[in-house]
């Protein structure tokens, strides 16, 4: 479970990236962080996964404070960050193994875990190829494998389907549903409404660094009095700028 509590972050004196963001993402639920570009989604995610220190507020990952005990919080998190660069001279399997080792796995446990992941992500065929020249979809799979190698209870994904073709997008969706069915807490951010609508049990709409709506898709429709989700979003954010693909 992830709880964000009044997260606030400024860069320099003028730019306020995140004004005040609070929400709770439950286990066994896919929570979507939806907002136009520049709404503060990535900064919020970075605060959740401990690489950016909030100026005010904090977040708890399974009860662990990300500001006070970042290293412990990272253990409970699997993250697909905005930057998902790979090592071109290492194979897909080596990527997963490296991250597993950094999470303290070794020996037979690590081998088993990596094999499971390669099956889960359907990447047996590319497992022992160097990642140089991988397609976007294959690259995301490698990045997913290394994010999930330690079997985290909480999974954070920053725009996971960005730049992917239809097939890859579908397999990412399948994976997220599967993680949810395993009872994990899944949070992903997106600026693509269809994406969020297709997957999320819960939607947190962020605009100008604040949470402007928080609820199930149905609740959102009901509260705005609009029939389609799209209309509902536009009504919540106040503008359709940056929301369309």
């Amino acid at each position: 479970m992830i709880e964000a509590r009044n997260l606030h972050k400024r860069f320099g004196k003028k730019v306020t990236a995140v004004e005040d963001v609070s929400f709770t993402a439950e286990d066994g639920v896919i929570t979507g962080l939806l907002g136009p570009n520049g709404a503060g989604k990535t900064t919020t995610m970075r605060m959740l996964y401990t690489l950016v220190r909030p100026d005010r507020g904090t977040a708890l990952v399974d009860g662990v404070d990300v500001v006070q005990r970042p290293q412990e919080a990272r253990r409970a998190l699997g993250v697909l960050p905005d930057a998902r660069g790979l090592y071109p001279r290492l194979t897909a399997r080596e990527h997963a193994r490296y991250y597993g080792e950094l999470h303290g796995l070794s020996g037979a446990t690590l081998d088993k875990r990596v094999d499971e992941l390669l099956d889960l992500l359907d990447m047996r065929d590319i497992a022992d190829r160097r990642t140089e020249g991988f397609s976007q979809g294959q690259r995301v799979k490698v990045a997913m494998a290394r994010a999930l190698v330690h079997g985290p209870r909480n999974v954070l994904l920053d725009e996971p389907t960005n730049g992917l073709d239809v097939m890859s997008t579908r397999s990412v969706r399948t994976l997220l549903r599967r993680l949810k069915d395993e009872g994990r807490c899944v949070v992903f951010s997106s600026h693509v409404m269809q994406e969020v609508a297709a997957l999320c049990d819960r939607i947190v709409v962020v605009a100008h660094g604040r949470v402007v709506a928080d609820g199930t898709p149905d609740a959102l429709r009901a509260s705005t009095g609009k029939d389609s989700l799209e209309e509902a979003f536009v009504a919540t954010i106040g503008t359709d700028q940056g929301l369309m693909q």
Partner: protein
Amino acid sequence: MSGLSFSVFRKELKDHLRDRRSVLTSLMWPLIGPVVFMVMFNLLASWYRQDRPLALPVVGREHAPSLMAFLERYGAQLEAAPEDYESRIRAGSLDAVLVVPDDYAESYSAGRTAEVQLVVDSSRQSARQSVLRARRLLEAYAHMLGNQRLYARGVSPDLAIPVRVQEADLSTPERTAAGLLNMVPLFLVIAAFAGGMQVASDAMAGERERGSLEPLLLNPAPRSAVVTGKWLATVVMAVAAVLITVVAYMLVVRRVPLEDLGVKARFDAPAALGMAAAVLPLALAVSAVQVWVSTYARSFKEAQTYLSLLMVVPMLPGMVLALSPLQPKMWMFAVPVLGQEVLAGEVMRGEPLGALPFLIAGASSILLTVVSLAVTARLLSQERIVFGRG
């Protein structure tokens, strides 16, 4: 903690060794020194070889028959100088030409000081030995004549020499060799810089540039473990480069005609070990500084530029030491880079040093290492470093 560092270390090294081209670059660099050394020594030796007869072209040979006879008796091969001897001297195909003016015989017979001209180009190192030999012969001839004239007047030639200068050359053969070998410490230190440069730039600046730094730091491994692992990989390459350089020098010294230069170099196994012991602690410090600098750089390219500039650091003291060796003082050993260059130079010269200078130099390197690693680990928790600066 150490296990995590080792994971990072193993990954970085594996990653780097698969990059054949940059490994070759790192390891070819150290070979430049020994190759330059071999070429230079062979050239020097060919210039200095004494068994060659002195070839001396002469203009106006007919004006000074007794001088010519003297020169030939002492082994000079006289020949008529070509018309364009001046340009040939400048071009280097002639070392020196003796010009006997028309009025030589007249001055000589009248008992005045007769003049001859030795035409040389003093900027040419290769001609130095021939010029020196020619001048010595001419001076010897002048001496002999002067003595004869004094005797003829019943004066002892000793009266004309109130003070005689005798040079006592204290330089041991090892010292003479070191004069020529002074470049070796510089190249050893440069190897410590060149070896790890590629890994260091890739491990930090490259990592961020390709967007893999952020995911890497999401692991629960402490920053210090990540930095230590990357540093260790850099150290391995730097140490490899230094060792390759030492071994290459040992091989080259055996093939170089040092005896022709009248020098005996101390470049046996103990000396090589001593030099390695002098320079290797520096490899730790240099690698740590390189990782630190690379963390600051915005891109791989920028890191390489900074790290190339960093190589100027050993060049400055190294060049000064090569041209005019300093009297070593204790404080010098405490200055990283300078300390190692002085230390390696002393080892090569065969000076007994004791353990203290090694300990001082090693301690200062380790201090620099620890500070650089600590600063780098702190940098990695700064947002502007992790996400890059705008």
